[in-house]
């Protein structure tokens, strides 16, 4: 605030200075120096002499005006550069007396107008002779200020680092001991009054790829919301979440067995969702169409698109507790045979408890997802079932503990079942970083048992992202 006040004072001082300079020049214009200019009515002077005197005066006046004009331009340039720096103390004592007369009404507005001054572009003098050579005359605008103000349209940017360490033995699924698993770069901004865009680039040991990049049309009529681009498909819960928002280091086994691993169903397509308003609960229906080349889906022809439908209901049980239930269905072609398809059906339920008065210290979330995969193969359809159930509890402002139990058949063979529990502890040094440890015990269908300890460091720099619900 002190700095702000100083800035206002400085701005008003400059304004007063400029004003008084202008006043003094105009004073010269109106009342030329006495004696020479004001011919006495008693002595009718020679008109020739008066004319000469007038010419001389005009020259004098023009010289004064030019000098003041130059000083004023210099001051303006100084003011332009000063507004981006901490305000210097005005040197001249004279304007201080006049300063209180300057508008003081809402201080915030006055300060907001002081920097930038888009109307006035500080100028530099054109080198002499430029005009003669066909160049411009007068002063040239300086474009630096304009460049600075164009940055306000830059998208919000953030980078999220995800470092994963794995210890213990696992002969079925191998993972490196230490890995900078992913650096996700996000760009988010409003496109125009009708849309916003979100782009997430993922840089990992496999290379750089578009994790998501989509346009959201926020101004459609009829309670519709549309998305176009590459995005995580609205199948269940975990599939829609970015790795760094999961409460675990890894993803549930059912994601790997049915939805193609950590990436999951994530494809280029169109999504339209509609609010189904009713007096009882929140209800949203979503319909999506995708290229058909993600997770278990593979196209053989261009029109082998995959499509998805989802219905999600949500209701507050009380102000602290709520229930979120969804069903999803998706269908697409697979590569198991000629014109074979995979159909996936999922049910998800989430119970959240977060007492508002202690919202930053306590919360509990229980979640389960049940999935059925029906995979067409040349040898006949394979119907498999997979699920996980998890609970996460925040027991202190920065500490979370959780458990998860996985059980899932493989999409290609319903008799091969992988299962096991996980135990997780997460520490949040701040809102912008997390340290997580996970113990995972997995019994694979091959008869192999793996005991692993995983740890993870997550950090976020840049724009403050909103938290997913």
């Amino acid at each position, binding site marked *: *605030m002190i*700095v*702000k006040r100083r800035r206002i004072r400085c701005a008003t001082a400059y304004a007063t200075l400029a004003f008084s300079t202008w006043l003094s020049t105009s004073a010269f214009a109106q009342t030329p120096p006495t004696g020479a200019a004001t011919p006495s009515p008693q002595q009718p002077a020679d008109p020739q002499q008066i004319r000469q005197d007038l010419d001389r005066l005009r020259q004098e006046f023009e010289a004064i005006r030019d000098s003041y004009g130059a000083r004023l331009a210099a001051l303006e340039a100084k003011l332009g550069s000063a507004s981006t720096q*901490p305000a210097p103390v005005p040197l001249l004592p004279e304007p201080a007396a006049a300063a209180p007369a300057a508008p003081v009404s*809402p*201080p*915030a*507005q006055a300060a907001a107008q002081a920097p930038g001054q888009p109307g006035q572009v500080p100028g530099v003098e054109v080198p002499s002779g430029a005009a003669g050579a066909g160049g411009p005359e007068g002063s040239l605008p300086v474009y630096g200020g304009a460049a600075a103000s164009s940055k306000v349209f830059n998208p919000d940017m953030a980078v999220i680092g995800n470092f994963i360490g794995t210890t213990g033995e696992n002969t079925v699924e191998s993972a490196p001991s230490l890995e900078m698993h992913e650096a996700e770069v996000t760009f988010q901004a*409003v496109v125009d*009054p*009708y849309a*916003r865009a979100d782009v997430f680039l993922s840089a990992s040991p496999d290379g750089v790829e578009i994790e998501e990049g989509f346009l*959201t049309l*926020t*101004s*459609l009529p009829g*309670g*519709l*919301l549309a998305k176009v681009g590459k995005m995580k498909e609205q199948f269940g819960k975990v599939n829609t979440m970015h790795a760094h928002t999961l409460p675990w280091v890894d993803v549930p086994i059912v994601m790997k067995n049915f939805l193609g691993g950590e990436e999951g169903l994530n494809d280029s397509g169109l999504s339209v969702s509609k*609010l189904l*308003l009713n007096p009882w609960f*929140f209800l*949203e229906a979503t319909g999506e169409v995708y290229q058909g080349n993600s997770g278990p889906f593979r196209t053989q022809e261009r029109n082998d698109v995959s499509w998805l439908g989802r219905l999600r209901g*949500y*209701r*507050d049980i009380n*102000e602290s507790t*709520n229930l*979120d239930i969804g069903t999803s269905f998706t269908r697409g072609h697979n590569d198991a045979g000629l014109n074979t398809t995979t159909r996936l059906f999922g049910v998800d339920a989430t119970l*959240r408890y*977060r007492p*508002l*008065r*202690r*919202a*930053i*210290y306590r919360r509990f979330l229980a979640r389960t997802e049940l999935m059925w995969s029906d995979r067409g193969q040349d040898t006949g359809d394979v119907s498999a079932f997979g699920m996980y159930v998890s609970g996460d509890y925040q027991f202190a*402002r*920065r500490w979370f503990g959780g458990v998860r139990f996985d059980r899932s058949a493989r999409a290609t063979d319903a008799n091969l079942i992988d299962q096991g529990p996980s135990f997780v502890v997460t520490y949040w040094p*701040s*809102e*912008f970083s997390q340290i997580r440890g996970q113990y995972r015990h997995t019994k694979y269908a091959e008869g192999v048992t793996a005991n692993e300890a995983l740890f993870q460091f997550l950090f976020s*720099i840049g724009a*403050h992202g*909103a*938290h*997913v*619900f």
Partner: protein
Amino acid sequence: MGLMCSRRRYRLGERKVQEMKSRIIGAALLVVLLASTNAFAQIKVVATTQDLESIAREVGGDKISVESLAKGYQDPHFVEAKPTFIIKLHSADLLIVVGRELEIGWLPPLVNQARNARIQPNGDRYLDASQTAKILEIPTGQITRAMGDVHPSGNPHYWLGPDNGRRIAQLIQKKLSEITPADAGYFAQRYADFDRRLADAEKRWQAAMAPYKGVKVVSYHRSWPNFTDAFGLDVIGYVEPKPGIPPSPTHTLELMQEMKRQNVKLIIMEPYFDRKTPDAIARETGAQVMVLAPSVGGVKEVTDYFKLFDYDINLVVNAIKQVGAK
């Protein structure tokens, strides 16, 4: 006119004119009726906090319906983006936000999913209440998150200065008058009334606090600069080592030493923070912990913007008297 004259020449035409007349009257009546129902239709206002809700109600009276998303007793930085809020925002005619990045962690996804073009940021029905407010603690120079969860555009708890309540009310009055110009007089009159009552109340509050100008206090979070600025309290330290970072033992020890050195006997905090550390500091230093209402709805008794200051000032004055702080 010419048409009517030409029709008068025929008897059949005359009947038609009669019919037309009655139809016109009927249509006019319908228009009037519609207009009047429109006039009675309330502007649906959604405010992010109960403070804004209360001020909007003061200005809007029965010409608006208003509800808030966050409750006064929850930390406004950490509100869950519940889908039920989407439904409220979907049908809102006006969204009033605190701004200054207070709601950055939860409001943007709600607005995106609201399917309401007018309340999108910078839409004509999106009102940032901080536009004309007196904002304190605007950081200067290089800022990094090493300073904790700093708000680059200044302290967002500005409603805790009663002068800002007036500025917010004026903004809301302007916006409501834009939405229904026919009721501009009503809103202006209600604003004038609020302004007058607030001025009276400010005199009362200032009088109550006058003997305690310059009393030193410690606050938990940096939520109170507008409050302490308005009523002349001097905040010498914070229980949080940095905004949004929970208390650490070393910082707590330093703070206790500083409190003892400067003889600080008062700790102010919000109801949504843990009392453990403030209580421990109070035991060690002989200070008193005051749980003030940071917002309308922060405690049950605080049901409007006036009661917010009534409650807080009463608590502060009593505590100062009790500990005999200077």
